[in-house]
């Protein structure tokens, strides 16, 4: 490619100005909202709390569900649960309160 061809390319591209109308729309409104949020820690705190609340709620529900499932799977035979990790002497001692 020679210089003239490159110059022609630039000349043609200069006619294709970027279209920014959509970004211009309400740009100052978005900007001021961001500035106010940065200036006012209270607003920022509330803003982020609202945004992250669904995430935290999902985590809490997930942990609760996991806990519920884990408890249901645990054995209800308490004697075998207790005895499973102790030898007989220890088990007797445990029931005798020693």
């Amino acid at each position, binding site marked *: 490619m020679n210089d003239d061809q490159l110059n022609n390319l630039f000349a043609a591209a200069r006619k294709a100005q970027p279209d920014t109308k959509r970004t211009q729309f309400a740009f*100052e409104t978005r900007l001021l909202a961001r500035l106010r949020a940065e200036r006012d820690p209270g607003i920022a705190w509330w803003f982020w709390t609202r945004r992250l609340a669904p995430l935290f709620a999902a985590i809490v529900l997930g942990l609760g569900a996991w806990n519920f499932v884990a408890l249901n799977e645990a054995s209800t035979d308490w004697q075998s649960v207790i005895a499973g990790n102790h030898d007989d002497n220890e088990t007797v001692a445990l029931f005798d309160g020693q």
Partner: protein
Amino acid sequence: MSAQTGELTDERLIQSTLTGDDEAFAALVVRYKRRILGIAARFTRSEAELDDLCQEIFIKVYRHLAKFRGEAPFEHWLSRIGIRACYDHLRKTRHDRNEMALDDVELACADDVSPKRAREVLDFALAKLSAEERLVITLLELEERTVEEIAELTGWSQSNVKIRAYRARRALRTILETHHER
């Protein structure tokens, strides 16, 4: 935006902004957003990216407004901040830009290439330049700024601007020739 703020000078709006008048700053933004968006759009690939970059530019302007001394027009000061923010943006995002693809570069070398096509071809090639070369050649050839203006906007010396422009043109020719030969 009130009709009153539209009639005020930049200096009055700046003074009002510094006393806490958000509406005055909004009026300044409305006055210059088209210009800043037009420049920044040459260095971004999506509306979201453009919106983010321009918000950062005006936030910098807001934070440093007290430093504006009025020795030059506000528009020059604003443009300088804008150009330097665009340069920082190019440096940060350069590694993302090398994956652009383009077919049929040959069509773009014809004399009757459409403006849209010419821009696509140049965007492809410009993405492969260094941030400095891309900034200089875009301001020189697409924004039609002079070397002196570019030096003033970027803070680089005029000889530096000329050298970068020369290297950018040479690199663009190589990129377009190489792609055409594939």
